[in-house]
């Protein structure tokens, strides 16, 4: 193999052709808007409805009612049993999706574009005219409880739950799991579901469409779903963030675990923060790619983990920074020390010119790669609507990144990272990891056994 002749010089390549997000059209109807992106040549299409029904709308004690309501939509309508509904949808080649975050709930279908109208009619039937029957509710609630119980046994779930309690006051909705707890879901009744549906899902919303819309009557699809306006909703309760003073190390015991789930988190600004792009660039350098500082140090230098990452999750009213890795039990304390040191290093030292140049190229160049399919463009439309971003937000990102300076990114690191006040949760074998964590001197170590599935 020594005889191989290879080109020694790395090709410089040219600048990427600027990317333009597909043109977005908006059509107003009595119940809300249709927001549509035309993708010429795509044979699959996405249609989804975005509703003001995020988990912040769930009444206290009813955590998880949004998720269970979304699940029940497909279990039977006024016209069809759950089985018949599934057969009708799947016979179109269509698949169903549903998701809930803090602010919004989204249900949708993906279907071949020549069957999109039929799939949207089924989506409307499920969303607006669900049967919500007692026996279906009992079965779905049983499934939800079992799913939460199963998730509780999966590495990381308990760490995440402890983080929520570390970051938010007990009365805050954000202090509980996104899709509810075993206790809250077990206590739900069909009346709770009907009330939530009536208040948040029965009317209104925004219809998102992504696909080759050249043969699609967009307004007609809108009329199927958006005939009536939604009732006014009151603003959600305050987020209830807990003040973080000294760094706390919470150990969640998982006897016999061969890995520890390490999670470091603290508060962050809301999604509408003016330095969003600078934060995104900084987070990419710290923990957003394979070559990020966290993954490089913990995986490629030390071999502590299969992967480490960090980033910001920002919603309308709240924001969280977190860094996570699953690390070998024996090196848990060392990994925590290294991860905290990387966060501290970027906070005080900023980023390098090379890192910034590389991140700008990555963030702009990879946009068209991430937005190739109707499903991903549908997700981008959901972001635009959820956060009130301009329709050409993804096209503008190009310019924003081009203009982004090192000072802005360094300022984001200095201003938005607080490793000294972070909540550090480590889910692992307490007996094995406690001595090392105490000795590491990174904060007061406490075993947390308050978590509830």
């Amino acid at each position, binding site marked *: 193999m020594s005889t191989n002749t290879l080109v020694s010089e790395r090709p410089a*390549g040219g600048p990427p052709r600027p990317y333009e997000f597909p043109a977005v059209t908006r059509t107003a109807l009595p119940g809300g808007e249709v927001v549509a992106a035309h993708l010429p040549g795509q044979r699959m299409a996405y249609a989804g409805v975005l509703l003001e029904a995020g988990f912040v709308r769930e009444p206290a004690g009813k955590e998880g009612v949004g998720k269970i309501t979304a699940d029940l939509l497909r279990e039977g309508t006024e016209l069809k049993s759950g089985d018949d509904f599934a057969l009708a949808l799947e016979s179109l080649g269509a*698949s169903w999706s549903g998701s809930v975050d803090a602010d919004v709930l989204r249900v949708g279908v993906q279907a071949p574009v020549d069957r999109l109208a039929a799939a949207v009619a089924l989506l409307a039937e499920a969303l607006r005219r669900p049967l919500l029957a007692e026996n279906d509710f009992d079965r779905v609630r049983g499934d939800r409880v079992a799913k939460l119980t199963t998730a509780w046994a999966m590495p990381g779930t308990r760490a995440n739950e402890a983080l929520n309690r570390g970051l938010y006051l007990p009365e805050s909705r954000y202090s509980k799991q996104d899709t509810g707890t075993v206790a809250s879901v077990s206590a739900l009744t069909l009346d709770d579901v009907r009330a939530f549906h009536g208040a948040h899902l029965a009317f209104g919303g925004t219809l998102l469409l992504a696909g080759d819309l050249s043969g699609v009557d967009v307004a007609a699809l809108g009329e199927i779903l958006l005939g009536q306006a939604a009732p006014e909703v009151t603003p959600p309760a305050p987020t209830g963030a807990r003040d973080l003073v000294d760094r706390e190390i919470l150990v969640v015991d998982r006897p016999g675990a061969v890995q520890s789930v390490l999670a470091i988190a603290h508060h962050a600004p809301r999604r509408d923060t003016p330095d969003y792009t600078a934060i995104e660039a900084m987070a990419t350098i710290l923990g957003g790619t*394979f070559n990020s500082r966290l993954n490089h140090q913990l995986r*490629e230098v030390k071999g502590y983990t299969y992967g480490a990452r960090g980033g910001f999750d920002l919603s309308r009213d709240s924001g969280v920074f977190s860094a996570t890795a699953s690390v070998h039990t024996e090196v848990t304390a060392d990994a925590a020390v290294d991860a905290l040191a990387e966060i501290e290093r970027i906070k005080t030292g900023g980023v390098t010119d090379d890192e910034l140049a590389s991140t700008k190229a990555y963030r702009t160049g990879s946009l068209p790669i991430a937005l190739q*399919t109707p499903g991903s463009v549908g997700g981008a439309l959901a972001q635009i609507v959820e956060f009130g971003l301009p329709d050409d937000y993804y096209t503008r990102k190009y310019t924003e990144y081009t203009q982004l300076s090192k000072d802005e990114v360094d300022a984001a690191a200095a201003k938005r990272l607080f490793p000294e006040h972070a909540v550090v949760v480590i889910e692992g074998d307490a007996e094995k990891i406690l001595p090392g964590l105490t000795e590491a001197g990174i904060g007061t170590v406490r075993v947390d056994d308050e978590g509830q599935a």
Partner: protein
Amino acid sequence: MTEVKSEPGTPEAEKAAASFPWPIHEAVLDNGLRVVVSADPTTPIAAVNLWYDVGSRHERAGKHGFAHLFEHLMFEGSSHVAKGEHFEWVTAAGGAAINATTSPDRTNYFQVMPSSQLELALWLEADRMGSLALTQDTLDNQREVVKNERRQRYDNPPYGRWVEYALELTFPEGHPYHHTTIGSMDELQEAALEDFQDFNAVYYSPNNAVLTVAGDVDAEEVVRLAEKYFGGIQRHGDIPAAPDGTLPQIKIGETKRRVEPDDSVPRPMTFVMFRAPDSRHPDFTAVEVLATVLGRGRGARLYRKLVTEKNLAQREESYTSVWNLAYGASVFFGLFSPRDGVEAAEVEREFTAVLDALADGTDPVSEAELGRAKALLTSDWLRAVSELGGRADLLGQYATLERDPKIVREYLGRLEAVTAEDVQRAAALILPDDNRVVIEYVTSATPDAETDGDADAEDAQEADA
């Protein structure tokens, strides 16, 4: 480089155009590297994908997991690229979707680039094909990373080892599919640098690879660039034949059962594995249809019977599924978890009854079921080829496994041709109880474990009942 075209206007041509409407251009370099190009200027990006015809099925006894560890080492540097720089240069050029995967059959390496940066990806891939730096330091580091991958995916999560247990019973000792790709902790610990130098010398040769580029490119230009960057790499010699995966028969011959008492799992769960015709067998598309009819989606038979009608099992995204292993036999599998208060044995009886009714023809596949399955599989296909990365990987797959990338055009036609009788034949072969491996996780809270007591726990370790 000649294009085989169907006559325009015929139904075959229409199906071919529906399966894969983009051009396919092929070339072979003097060193044996096969180049496949599919141009599509819609978006200014290009997928670059390499399939190496080597996977865990090529591993010898005592060396399990080495193909996958080698894949990790491919990112650790070469003559002109330092450790970590493959990712660094690709992302710095605006590329994304960079990774590699190892399966029993093959190893693939891929990234998607802005099309103006195509040459960079070709240069990086050529440099590691032609001059991989294998050092003790990077081996030691990546061995720890892979051990953590194993802990994260297999050893730490509940039920994480079920596939290992099932494959050991589904394929005989010594068969290429008897072991998982992740391999064994002990054997990885013993891995020496020479093992990987040998592996490189034998398998990572241009004549054992297919380079596929799909996207905003000119086919002739890509072939010219492939020659520029890969043309100077010497072919290592003939690739030794892979261990033979041929089985005397597709069927296992009996039902094998492993009962796994485990109080670290949240609920009892049963996994069932069957041997099936391999992915190159003419009946394989019928096997995919069978898995969809039986166990995929809310409208599948198993969901309607076990969840809606009888209320015995937790709902699952997928009750049955199939892998596309290509040599000798593939794997069809299913799973279920009983509802609280329901015994696993009762769910298994109903689960089996649904399979039997299909296999013995008492409840044959209806035209509506066939139509539903074909519609879902057609949408899967359209989704897969809608992304350049997926498109390039399918071309690499067909070029490697079937020696002809243009077979990518046959998929929807093959799917359309599947009849209820084809599905019936596949069911009758795969599903009966002389072709079954059952892995049953029981917890001490479940009736099974309470009545059987501790003696059974020791028997279960024998891995064959």
